[in-house]
């Protein structure tokens, strides 16, 4: 322990560089993990947070909320399926809005027909809408009492409908856009204000609730069997299968694997070279009675201190990033992810030092008497 710390104290430059490199790598890994989580939550958070256990898309929608359109015939078929106890329209579109007296911005509106079926399940503040002009907003983008005006393109409502935010819900964006949940009548008014040429406002999906004794998955199967144009998904499936989610996960997984390999390789290389450089001194120590276990322990203490130091620096760099909003993206400090990555990198770092440890164990004290000491 004394030797390990003493050596680190005397070679602050090289150990500092290594700790800095590991710190930067940890920072990058944690940041990208947080960006991945933030992106996926931003893409499909609203689907996860809405209250309907089953969502029925049209096959043509390709599992995209905004791309799906349910025509009246398909809606009637869905409502008639045995096991559907309640069904309600859900619509989604993106609009140009003005929040309070601010500049124009984008907002996604999700219209729901029935409370408890497509509206957010658990509010973080406020209450549910009780009139067509009230809304629940994504908590990272709106505040209670905000007034959101949909910018009109002319037509019957040249000023556009105004929604008052009466409730907030966390992690409820869609398409990484500030999101409002509004009653169906309010949603219809918004669509007609944005596009006066719209003849009919059809739902994008039908939210359904299974009857008692029917599971969500079983109901989805029954609906899909009832019509080749219906694509019924449970809430979790709908979030997971939204186009783009799997690609984001695959891309980030590859990046994580590459970064995860760089950390132990850098650490392993460093300690291997250090061990080579100290060959003569280590041989001498062994010749005067130092046990190989003591020397390996000293090496491992240094490895652990370097990795832990790097992790501490990485976390210290990462924390300030989680305190600010990156555009519409929420980058959050996830203690579980931090712990998992810390444990994994520590284990990989220690494992990578095994090559150096093997060299230490192979030292022959007799070499000291022959003027050798090379490894």
């Amino acid at each position: 322990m004394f030797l390990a710390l003493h050596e680190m104290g005397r070679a602050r430059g090289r150990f500092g560089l290594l700790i800095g490199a590991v710190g930067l790598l940890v920072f990058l890994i944690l940041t990208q993990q947080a960006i991945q989580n933030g992106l996926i939550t931003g893409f499909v958070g609203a689907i996860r947070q809405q209250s309907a256990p089953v969502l029925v898309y049209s096959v043509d929608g390709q599992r995209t909320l905004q791309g799906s359109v349910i025509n009246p015939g398909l809606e009637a078929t869905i409502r008639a399926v045995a096991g559907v106890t309640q069904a309600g329209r859900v619509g989604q579109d993106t609009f140009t809005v003005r929040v309070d007296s601010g500049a124009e911005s984008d907002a996604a509106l999700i219209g729901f027909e029935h409370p408890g079926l497509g509206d957010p399940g658990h509010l973080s503040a406020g209450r549910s809408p009780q009139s067509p002009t009230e809304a629940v907003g994504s908590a990272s983008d709106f505040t209670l009492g905000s007034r959101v005006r949909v910018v009109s393109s002319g037509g019957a409502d040249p000023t556009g409908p105004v929604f008052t935010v009466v409730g907030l819900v966390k992690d409820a964006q869609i398409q990484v856009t500030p999101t409002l949940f509004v009653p169906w009548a309010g949603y219809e008014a918004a669509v007609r204000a944005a596009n006066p040429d719209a003849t009919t406002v059809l739902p994008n999906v039908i939210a359904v609730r299974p009857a008692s004794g029917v599971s969500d998955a079983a109901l989805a199967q029954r609906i899909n069997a009832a019509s080749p144009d219906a694509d019924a998904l449970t809430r979790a499936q709908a979030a997971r299968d939204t186009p783009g989610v799997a690609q984001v996960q695959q891309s980030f997984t590859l990046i994580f694997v590459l970064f995860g390999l760089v950390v132990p390789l850098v650490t392993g290389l460093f300690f291997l070279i250090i061990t080579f450089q100290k060959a003569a001194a280590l041989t001498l120590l062994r010749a005067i009675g130092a046990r190989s276990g003591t020397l390996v322990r000293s090496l491992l203490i240094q490895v652990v201190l370097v990795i832990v130091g790097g992790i501490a620096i990485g976390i210290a760099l990462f924390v300030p990033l989680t305190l600010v909003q990156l555009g519409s993206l929420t980058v959050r400090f996830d203690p579980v992810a931090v712990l998992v990555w810390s444990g994994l990198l520590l284990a990989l770092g220690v494992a990578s030092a095994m090559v150096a440890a093997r060299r230490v164990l192979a030292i022959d004290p007799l070499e000291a008497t022959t003027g050798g000491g090379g490894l």
Partner: protein
Amino acid sequence: MTLALREMRRRPGRFAIATVILTLIAILLMFLGGLLDGLVASSTGAFRSQQADLLVYSTSSRNSLERSRITPEVRQQVETVPGVARVGGLGSVQLGGRVPGRGPRDLVPTVLFGYELASRGLPAMPPAMGTVYADDSLRASNVTIGTTIHLGPARSAVTVAGFVSDTRYSGQGTLWGSLDTWRQVLNANRPDARVGPGVVQALVVRSGPGGTTGLPARIGQATGGAATALTIAQAIDALPGVAQQRSVFNQIIGVTVVIAVVVVALFFALLTVERTALYGVLKAIGSSSRTLFAGVVLQAVIVALIASLIGIVASLVLDALIPPGTIPFVATPVRLAASAVILVVAAVIGCTFSLRRVLRIDPAAAIGGTP
């Protein structure tokens, strides 16, 4: 120099681990860059292929093609603006396409564009009603010349007359037809987004001999602020996510380059420490610090070049192996070359940290004499 090269030839093992680490970093740089290029290319092809100077949106749409609506009156105002040579309408709708030979639930995501002014590769005259040109990425979905694709819940039929390249939009393959085809398909499938007669989503503007200087402002003025004109580059940046993707990926690439600098610095600092006595001897027999340091730089450059070369091969293999429609990765020569140059520069910067140590070596002290 000869000494540096000879050392690498005789003791390649000494440089192997650094090469492996730099190779991983090279692959990371190229993968991140290729991912960014793939994402951007699949979102912006339809705009990059435009043979025009400006795209005009309705101001209330905040530069979103899908939300924009240009009425015939606004179009007329734009056409009369001095400096505007030609104006064409543009419209789009994203719909699932049913391609013969695929299952009833196995739809191909497509974007149907209606155009008047041809973009690169399209015939100057838009094809007849119900006929379209397809982006060649749709070939992977069994689309060939003569294929009839049924679009959207209304099963609107369009027949493919030919192919164009690099015109994807929003990550999807595109179909290019006349404005009438687009309007009919849109109104049949998306009643909430339908457009009236003569209405388009955007205008494609070709400027006159005077160029685009001041033209966007004049268009804004002529339409009383109802329309906003953007250059093609601005319109690409305004596409959802494009600017954000570029910013995030470039930051990650930047930090990765810093890591490459640190790794090279660390490795060559350790090598220099190890060679202190040797450098002392070399200095004692007349070698200059400049020669010794040039040897270090040469070794760093060679290590970086080998790593880059392996990285390039790995990226090309990855590009060939990744199935279409999964990870949007594309390995372009420009990106691969740029990544290699960045890595070599990072290696040179990294090994300059050893310069001070080389300069400080006292030949007398290094070989055991009294300074």
